[in-house]
């Protein structure tokens, strides 16, 4: 990883690093936008098709209203201009009471909330589990942790989510079976469990093997030889090097969690953007699709950058 992280002409200053990243991000987003626009346009069908085809006259009215009768380059430039000048991502062709801005304003906080909570839960539980398993290597705790992590990693969450509802809603009656309700705690629990488990498992596995490796390294052996207590060794000396490989995983993990999950939104009816995104692709809801592509693309770039900075902060040897 470090090899990839060091930009070939890397300068020492974080500011210039951030600046360069942003300079790359803008054309990246533009390319992303154009690719998704072209793909949407080439996809068969259109946003206004239905079982009952619209009469040509009616279709023409609707296309005129949304500017879809314009040549493709004009649509694209208008769209980009709308974003740049007014931060307007356009209307939804399918959910006509809403604009893309409305959808993002309503759905993104939801996704961000359960994504961030899942992320924190995954780190805390996964990290603790991994460390505990490493310290007590080959104990029952270790086997249990390893078993759990692999199990959790391979159980698809479209299986886990309905099982959670079956157990916690129908059988135990403890939690509501879906909805968001403004983020009320009892509506958040199941989405967080379903979303965080596989990440938690990955983090635990990474932490465990990384910790095992660190514990065998010379400087820990030296510390042991000096007679330092185990606790001090682990917290003072072993923890930071242990976390290094974990941190590089956190970037993709965080992006994965906050950019929305179709399965979570679809099964728990949370109203996050994951569902809107996939559905927009199926509905050919061009503006929603592109607006969310830009949003998710920006998030991905931003969080990857944050992770790189974090990485450099933990390990000063790495140049940005």
């Amino acid at each position, binding site marked *: 990883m470090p090899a990839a992280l060091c930009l070939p002409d890397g300068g020492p200053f974080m500011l210039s690093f951030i600046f360069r990243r942003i300079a790359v991000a803008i054309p990246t987003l533009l390319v992303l936008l154009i690719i998704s626009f072209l793909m949407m346009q080439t*996809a*068969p*069908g*259109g946003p*206004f*098709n*239905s*079982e*009952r*085809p*619209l*009469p040509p*006259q*009616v279709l023409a*009215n*609707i296309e*005129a*209203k*949304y500017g879809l009768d314009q040549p493709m380059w004009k649509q694209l430039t208008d769209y980009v201009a709308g974003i740049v000048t007014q931060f307007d991502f356009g*209307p939804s062709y*399918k*959910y*006509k*009471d*809403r*604009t893309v801005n*409305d*959808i993002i304003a*309503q*759905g993104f906080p939801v996704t961000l909330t359960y994504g961030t909570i899942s992320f924190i839960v995954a780190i805390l539980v996964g990290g603790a589990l991994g460390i505990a398993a490493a310290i007590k290597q080959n104990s029952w705790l270790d086997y249990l942790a390893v078993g759990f992590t692999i199990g959790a990693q391979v159980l698809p969450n479209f299986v886990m989510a*309905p099982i959670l*509802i*079956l157990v916690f*809603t*129908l059988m135990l*009656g403890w939690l*509501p*079976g*879906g*909805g*968001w309700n403004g983020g009320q705690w009892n509506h958040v629990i199941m989405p967080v469990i379903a979303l965080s488990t596989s990440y938690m498992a990955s983090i635990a596995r990474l932490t465990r093997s990384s910790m095992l490796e660190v514990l065998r390294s010379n400087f820990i052996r030296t510390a042991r030889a000096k007679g330092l207590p185990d606790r001090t060794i682990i917290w003072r000396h072993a923890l930071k090097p242990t976390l290094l490989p974990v941190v590089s995983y956190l970037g993709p993990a965080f992006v994965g969690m906050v950019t929305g999950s179709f399965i979570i*939104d*679809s*099964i728990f*009816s*949370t*109203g996050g953007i994951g*569902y*809107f995104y996939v559905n927009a692709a*199926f*509905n*050919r809801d061009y503006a929603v699709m592109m607006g969310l592509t830009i949003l998710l693309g920006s998030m991905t770039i931003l969080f990857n950058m944050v992770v790189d900075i974090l990485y450099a902060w933990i390990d000063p040897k790495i140049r940005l």
Partner: protein
Amino acid sequence: MNISIKSVLFASALAFASPALAQGTAPNGMPLADTQTFVYRVLDEHSSVDPQIVEDVSGSEIVRDLFEGLYNQDADGNLVPGVALSHTVSDDKLTYTFTLRPEAVWSDGTPVTAGDFVYGWRRLADPETASPYQWFVDVMGLANAGPVMAGEMPTEELGVKAIDDHTLEVTLAGPLPYFPLTTTHASTFPSPKWVIDEFGADWTKPENIVSNGAYVLTEHVPQERSVRTRNETYWDNENTIINEVTALVINDVNVALTRYLAGELDRTEVPAGQYPSLKEEYPDQALSFPRLCNYYFNFNLSDMGPEATQDVRVRQALSYAVNRDVIVDNVLQGGQSPAYTFTPSATANFEVPTVDYATWTQEERNAKAVELMAEAGYGPDNPLSVTYLYNTDENHKKIAIAVAQMWKQTLGVDVTLENQEWQTFLETRGNHDFQIARGAWCGDYNEASTFLDLVQSGSGYNDAAYNNAEVDQLLAEAKTAEDPQANYTRVEEILADEMPVIPIYHYAGVYMMSPGISGSWPVQNVEQNWYSKDLYKVATE
């Protein structure tokens, strides 16, 4: 025509005569439950709650609660007064004059006037509104509908005007016996001009919306829920029993059922195949009733279609070999009825014609099918291969799998299943780029022509590209005929003979409904135009 007016007046008189409901007693005399809320599952987010923009079923359900048109439907699907009390028809049957209810007001207190209807209908016809249901003014037969829709004439020329605040005059282009029936459609509801002018496209948001129905929209979280609560200014508010109606978006039908069983919902759809066991376990909650929809397979009779199915014997054989009883009893299992005719038997004033192959046993049909295939030159050494196209959906898939096996096992046909996602499917089918494709249709109004018009050669919905001059003529005549049944019978007979489509089954609404609410559900209304104001929840232990 006269019948329709009479029934309206009669129903109106009944409504007038019914005494205000005693506190805590349901219309059927049972004690009411303490909390009168109705929570139901919808598959997907609705398209809009703007009457002139809405295009989907779940959106129309909400619009029917929020707004009120000239007429409503009762539990049996008959017309009952809404904002209009009654109407008269001129002798030439071209001019309808509606008398509006003086006490009707919008939720902001403004009286509902004939002008609001005029505004709504012009808005519907106006090309600038870009309503997906703009064509409905044509279905209603309003004078000048065509030129106004095309933008060639100002919307003021549309055949509707306000004589005074409570008198609405409608002029039709030609006599249309079922015109009053069209006024229950969501797109014909009035809209509040002053609100739309003030808020523009944002007027349907809960904080802005003004409506004239029994409910007002109080909350809308896309892809999660929408809530409507009792409208205190509604003219018949005192007879409204349900206080709050919530539509929850739940994509997965099985998850929805789990949540229903956990008591979170009052109504949800039953997944295919689960009705019998649910009925056994919850006899008072599992409901199944006929709907005004059909399900069929299109042959591709256009030039692009395969040669094999241009042969009527092949089409008949494939149709005969489909064991419809297995589809409805073993695959769907929800009380659907096997279809041998295109038009559902639930259609009003429609008598299902007896087509020959409906009366045979499946063994006879299979034997005949084998015979026909042999005649057409297909057999074990020259097996027919066909591709069946359907869109991604659990039920479509199950039917496709079953039918493919029926054809294979009975006729030795080699079937390739092709499943496409919805938009691609529509495009492929619309371009006649298929061999056999799934189709389904729900009636726009309760009359056989809403179905049979599909097989007219000029119809935009004729995916089979079926073209039969006699059928076209019979259907054209039926439009103005006093009793079109004879024409419909003949058309169905021709269809059974030439088999441009294979009717598979006629829909049923299959629901789990909480025991409190199920008694008030309008199961007799085959169009399923239900109004929350007519529902109520009785007390259950």
